[in-house]
């Protein structure tokens, strides 16, 4: 009985009127944990009851402490009939279980009802007394810290990185149980909320156990997802990176997370780190897997792995690995897969490229919740593939790894993607990466698919290592990790433009954030590829097969689009690439977002050359040349816009010889037909690598259309989907976060692929435009971490819809001489890569009808409220007055605004951001993970509609708007109750919206997560929230000097 949970109910306020007669409420509270329930007295006739209860004490196992939420129910006492529930509060007490996180939960928390939304607030106090449990066989993992942040949390230092941890739990979905037919929607929703809360608690506990087993004490980059598989059940799965973290003392200046000086388990020979870089503990790798189409044979499994990142050939048969290559002692969890996207300097040695895998599965009912083997096996398979793709790129690790699913009816697409990389083994656990020594010999025989991991040895090795030591950190990571003579895919290599000694590819795609040390020319920008493909409606296996047949083409096209857009912007690398493919009943949506940058170390991208295949008549040629001119103009304009002016002098140096055979295969991607023309063009080496576009077929025309129709970003705006806007360094500390959700319904027209594409592109463009417009008063600003999610929610028979979440924090920054704001978007969804060449062009099946809707949600973080302060006086002149009165610095402005606040605002301001940090501030404490799941339902959609008629707007929007606002409010309240003032690494992982107008009903599920933190401003003291002074005396004292 290792824990005592104590709860005290203090008071309520703003309660709803439950008794129409008296316009008052007789409220009391039930406090429940596990199977124990306590009640407060009834506080009669008040909307602001003061219970001031005793301490309710629960003596429980710490296992339960981790799994169960504390459940607080507020009820209205009724003498004659059953007591009416007003609403509930679920409190996750996990943050209280770690000594370094929060110590008490205390504050006003919204009382939530799944039908009515927030109904008043309740003030509670929750504490935990934990006794030490030294039992080796314990089932709990109290004390393991969890972070959503995908970098080493500030104020910690990493001693060791243990590697990948994953876990998955399944259950039946209460919504689909028989009992659901007879119970109320409320009961059903609450059962679901509670179940999911329990499941995520259990999941976290199990992952914690794995971490303890590995010897770690924290999980970083914790990513938890729900798969609502409908009839077949509910899956909660999570991945993360196990680490051993050391807390930095508050006194030390710890802006940058640092690796400890001497990693306890560091390898023997730090001077030659590469030597120890092994062919990373290879997974049981069955080469047959990628190519074997289980789809055709097996009845439930359709596994398809189109191809991977830049490793097209990876899917081509690679020689089987010999058995001794496997190291049986290593478990799957120890595969060097990392969910981190941001690394301490020196951690990342080389980056190979994006690796990704998709697999189409047919869902069947989960028969035994205790044995989630099927799902486990699915994911294991996928991770294996990712691993093998990484190997093909000559890398021993995958970083920036993420997993996702898209479910429509019984079909499920599982996706995983990451970036193949070589890591500095100093910080790895021995078992994980340092086993290389023994494998070297075995893996040395070169085989085409799996090159390079052992490149460290052999003839190349000496020079390589020499270079390695000398290679400056600003370019080292772009150097190819694979063998240039056995490249896993056709790419054009040149010598690094920075150090001139190592080979680099012409283009680099990654899923990670831009490393801080990378040298960038100009500024970055958001690049999106959008694609919509119709498919025939089908059932079961046929459906799954048709989807898996479509996937490769979609990836290919998305990749082509990305490539074209990248070239059009004169950039040569993509960071934070996320490719999401969503499946609907009669269409597939693909959305790829990334942040394009010009890496100084990579060669300048060539232009885009348009070629007509059949140069028949003059007008046609003319058409082509006009297009060519438009493209050239756009490129020139973009260079100006993004300030990309690579130094010219490099040219001569680059003339360095490149083996001829490289040259022949230089085109990274080319449509098969165009390859003939290529040779005619003068493409000596990467320099003038014109990218040839065929416009003979409609697809190519479409490509070009989409290239040129992308609206330019309005002046003063910048956008990216990574944490930091490349090329912009001075951020102001104000920031805002927004969510936007849109659903479109397609009319029942016969839509072709082109038509759909156009519509889809317009949706995304319009959403971006709306964002820009809404935030126009903040410019100059940058949208960071701009995040789109698309979905095609299933609905009745007729409709297929898509929805897009768009999450955008907006940050402001100041440039050298002008003041600017920065704004960025992140993609939260799943990603894949796109790169390879499918052999045939996708055929476009036509659909009989299709209607789909599309939804986008956006989170934007805006930095500063300056607009408001200035707005006060003269409404009309805001924007202009703002522009012409550039305040010298953020500080003076914020001082002004603080002063105008009425003192003693009772509600703590809680910031939310998808970024892992708040610009201009310092995070002094992590209070624990916030992971909340809410369901909201309305059965009076029509009434809402009527109420809103005045604005000629649907009630659905009102419903969702208030729900999202409520979710934000609850998240903020919980963060504040933990003593925090911000939520970082925030993400809305799930936002499922279902509407049934016939039943006058709508339902929405939202899952949000993030890390609750306490931050303090680096510049101005007065912004320190009051709670800080009491709680964090030591650290505020230290910070006072900054």
């Amino acid at each position: 009985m290792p824990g005592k949970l104590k709860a005290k109910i203090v008071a309520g306020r703003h309660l709803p009127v439950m008794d129409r007669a008296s316009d008052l409420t007789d409220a009391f509270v039930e406090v429940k944990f596990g199977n124990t329930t306590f009640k407060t007295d009834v506080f009669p006739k008040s909307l602001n009851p003061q219970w001031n209860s005793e301490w309710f004490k629960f003596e429980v196992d710490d296992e339960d402490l981790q799994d169960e939420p504390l459940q607080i129910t507020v009820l209205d006492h009724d003498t004659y009939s059953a007591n009416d529930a007003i609403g509930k509060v679920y409190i996750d007490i996990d943050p209280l279980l770690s000594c370094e996180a929060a110590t008490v939960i205390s504050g006003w928390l919204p009382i939530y009802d799944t039908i009515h939304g927030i109904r008043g607030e309740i003030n509670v106090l929750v504490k935990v007394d934990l006794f030490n449990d030294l039992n080796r066989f314990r089932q709990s993992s109290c004390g393991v810290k969890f972070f959503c942040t995908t970098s080493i949390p500030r104020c910690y230092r990493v001693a060791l990185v243990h590697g990948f941890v994953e876990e998955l739990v399944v259950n039946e979905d209460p919504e689909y149980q028989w009992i659901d037919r007879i119970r109320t929607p409320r009961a059903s929703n609450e059962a679901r909320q509670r179940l999911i809360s329990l499941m995520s608690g259990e999941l976290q506990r199990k992952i914690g156990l794995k971490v303890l087993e590995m010897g770690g004490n924290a999980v970083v980059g914790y990513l938890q997802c729900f798969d609502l598989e409908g009839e077949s059940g509910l899956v909660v799965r999570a991945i993360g990176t196990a680490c051993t973290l050391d807390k930095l003392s508050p006194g030390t200046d710890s802006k940058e997370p640092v690796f400890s000086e001497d990693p306890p388990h560091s390898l023997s020979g730090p001077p030659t780190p590469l030597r120890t870089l092994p062919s990373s503990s290879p997974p049981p790798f069955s080469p047959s897997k990628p190519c074997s189409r289980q789809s055709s044979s097996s009845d439930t499994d359709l596994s398809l792995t189109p191809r991977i990142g830049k490793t097209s050939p990876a899917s081509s048969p690679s020689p089987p690995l010999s058995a001794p290559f496997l190291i049986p002692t290593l478990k799957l969890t120890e595969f060097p897969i990392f969910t981190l996207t941001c690394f301490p300097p020196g951690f990342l040695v080389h980056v190979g490229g994006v690796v990704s895998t998709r697999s189409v599965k047919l869902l069947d009912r989960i028969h035994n919740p205790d044995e989630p083997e099927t799902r486990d096996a699915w994911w294991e398979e996928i991770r294996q593939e990712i691993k093998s793709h990484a190997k093909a790129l000559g890398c021993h690790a995958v970083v920036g790894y993420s997993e996702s699913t898209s479910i429509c009816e019984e079909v499920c697409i599982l996706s995983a993607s990451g970036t193949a990389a070589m890591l500095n083994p100093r910080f790895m656990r021995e078992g994980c990466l340092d086993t290389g020594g023994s494998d070297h010999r075995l893996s040395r025989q070169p085989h085409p698919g799996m090159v390079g991991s052992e490149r460290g040895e052999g003839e190349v090795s000496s020079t390589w290592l020499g270079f390695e030591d000398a290679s400056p950190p600003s370019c080292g990571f772009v150097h190819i990790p694979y063998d240039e003579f056995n490249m896993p895919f056709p790419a054009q290599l040149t010598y690094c433009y920075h150090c001139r000694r190592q080979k680099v590819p012409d283009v680099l795609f990654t899923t990670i954030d831009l490393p801080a040390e990378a040298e960038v020319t100009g500024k970055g920008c958001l690049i999106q590829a959008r694609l919509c493909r119709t498919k025939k409606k089908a059932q079961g296996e046929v459906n799954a097969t048709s989807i898996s047949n479509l996937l490769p083409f979609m990836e290919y096209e998305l990749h082509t689009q990305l490539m074209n857009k990248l070239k059009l912007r004169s950039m040569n690398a993509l960071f934070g690439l996320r490719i999401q493919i969503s499946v609907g009943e009669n269409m597939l949506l693909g959305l790829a977002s990334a942040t394009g940058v010009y890496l100084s170390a990579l060669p300048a991208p060539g232009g885009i050359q348009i070629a007509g295949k059949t140069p028949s008549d003059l007008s046609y040629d003319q058409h082509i040349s006009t297009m060519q001119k438009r493209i050239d103009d756009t490129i020139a304009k973009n260079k100006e816009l993004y300030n990309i002016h690579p130094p010219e002098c490099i040219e001569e140096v680059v003339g360095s010889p490149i083996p001829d055979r490289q040259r022949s295969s230089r085109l990274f991607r080319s449509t098969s037909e165009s390859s003939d023309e290529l040779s005619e063009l003068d493409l000596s080496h990467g320099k003038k690598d014109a990218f040839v576009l065929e416009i003979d077929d409609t697809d190519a025309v479409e490509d070009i259309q989409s290239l040129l129709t992308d609206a330019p970003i309005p002046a003063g705006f910048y956008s990216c989907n990574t944490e930091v806007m490349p090329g912009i360094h001075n951020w102001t500390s104000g920031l805002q976060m927004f969510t936007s959700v849109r659903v479109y319904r397609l009319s029942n027209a016969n839509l072709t692929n082109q038509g759909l594409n156009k519509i889809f592109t317009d949706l995304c463009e319009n959403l971006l435009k709306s964002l820009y417009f809404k935030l126009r008063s903040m410019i100059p600003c940058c949208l960071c971490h701009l995040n789109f999610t698309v979905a095609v929610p299933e609905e009745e028979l007729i409709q297929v819809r898509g929805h897009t979440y768009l999450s955008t924090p907006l940050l402001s920054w100041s440039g050298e001489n002008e003041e600017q704001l920065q704004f960025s978007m992140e993609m939260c969804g799943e990603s894949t890569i796109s790169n390879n060449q499918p052999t045939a062009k996708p055929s476009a099946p036509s659909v009989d009808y299709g209607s789909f809707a599309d939804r986008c949600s956006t989170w934007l973080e805006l930095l500063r409220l300056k607009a408001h302060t200035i707005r006060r006086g003269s409404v009309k002149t805001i924007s202009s007055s703002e522009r012409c009165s550039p305040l010298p610095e953020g500080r003076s402005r914020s001082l002004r605004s603080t002063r105008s606040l009425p003192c003693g605002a009772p509600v703590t301001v809680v910031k939310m951001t998808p970024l892992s940090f708040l610009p201009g501030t310092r995070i002094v404490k992590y209070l624990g993970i916030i992971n909340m799941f809410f369901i909201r339902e309305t059965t009076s959609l029509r009434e809402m509609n009527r109420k809103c008629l005045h604005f000629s707007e649907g009630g659905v929007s009102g419903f969702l708007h208030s729900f999202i606002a409520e979710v934000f409010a609850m998240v903020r309240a919980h963060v504040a109750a933990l003593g925090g003032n911000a939520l970082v690494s925030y993400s809305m992982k799930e936002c499922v919206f279902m509407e049934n107008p016939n039943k006058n009903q709508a339902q929405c599920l939202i899952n949000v997560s993030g890390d609750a933190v306490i931050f303090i401003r680096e510049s101005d003291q007065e912004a320190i929230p009051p709670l800080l002074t009491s709680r964090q005396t030591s650290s505020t004292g230290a910070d006072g000097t900054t």
Partner: protein
Amino acid sequence: MSMELDVFVGNTTIMDMEVYQLWLDGLTVSDAVKVRMDEGALLECEANPEVLTSDTMDQFRTFQMCERLLHSPTKLGSQLLYQIPAQNQIILIERYYEFDSVFAREVLGKKLSKGTKKDLDDTSCKTGITLKSCRRQFDNFKRVFKVVEELKGPLVENIQRHFLLSDTLARDYAAIVFFANSRFETGKRKLQYLSFQDFAFCAGQLISYWTIGAMGAPTVPDSMMEDMDVDLEKEFLNELKDLKVLVNDKDMMDQHKILVCAALRGKIKVYKLMEVNFKNLSRALINLASKLTHTKDVRDLFIDLVEKFIEPCRYDRWTVAEITLFLTHYTNAAHCLGTFRHQMIWDRYMGVIKSCILQMYHE
């Protein structure tokens, strides 16, 4: 293709104050979009009508959802649903409670009842203010009235405390509450020339000097129980009867006239007319005072002032300066009357009457 759902939510609720004003003005989304287009919103950020409509709709929805909270502004600060920066909360509240004085003038002195609310479409037609906006303003009046009606303590402070309004706005609301409570007649044709500001000023005077709270709380601790500011002080109104002596006592009246004439001779152009009319004017003011014990006559205070005093003066083309001089000396002269004992009451009465007349004396 149609937009089924379009929502934009920020962690910090972002509000465009221009759009807020359009919403407050009771415009529909499409009208608001038109107005914004005319103002050149499309020129910014390459917006198109679709973007503008979406933005307007979002904002309107946000305001509509916040409206409930604006009904009890103190809740806005403690609620958790919308994170609105404190300075924005202040603007939101202030703007929400701001009203068109044309509208307020129409409603002034009327009972804030459902009946009045039903007539609002007439008011809307007459003033050109949208019905929706009229309703909001009317409901605001009613809400403030209901809350403040039952409260003890100074009216303006109560309004400020419960509705977090600025001092100026709180004073205006105090006037509205005061008028609605005492149901002063303001609708007569002869009073039409008076603006809301005129009445608000007068109300301020009455509140400041003629109510129980006016004389300073310490002297009347028990009466803290009463609606200090909302009702005129009964005792004072009763005492006003004593002023009758100024017209009933012929000697005193004559002496009063002599004193005033002596002071004003040569100083005003209308001296002759004043001399002739003195008794009428004096009688008008004194009678007015003595009648104030009747609720009906209190309601007619302003129409009486206009009919009995302001109109005669206007007929005789008195200037404001002349009226000022006259009233000053008229008031002061009474102090020199040896037999007149009601100096305190007199000053209290005349101070207010004088400033009201001066405020009301215009075209």
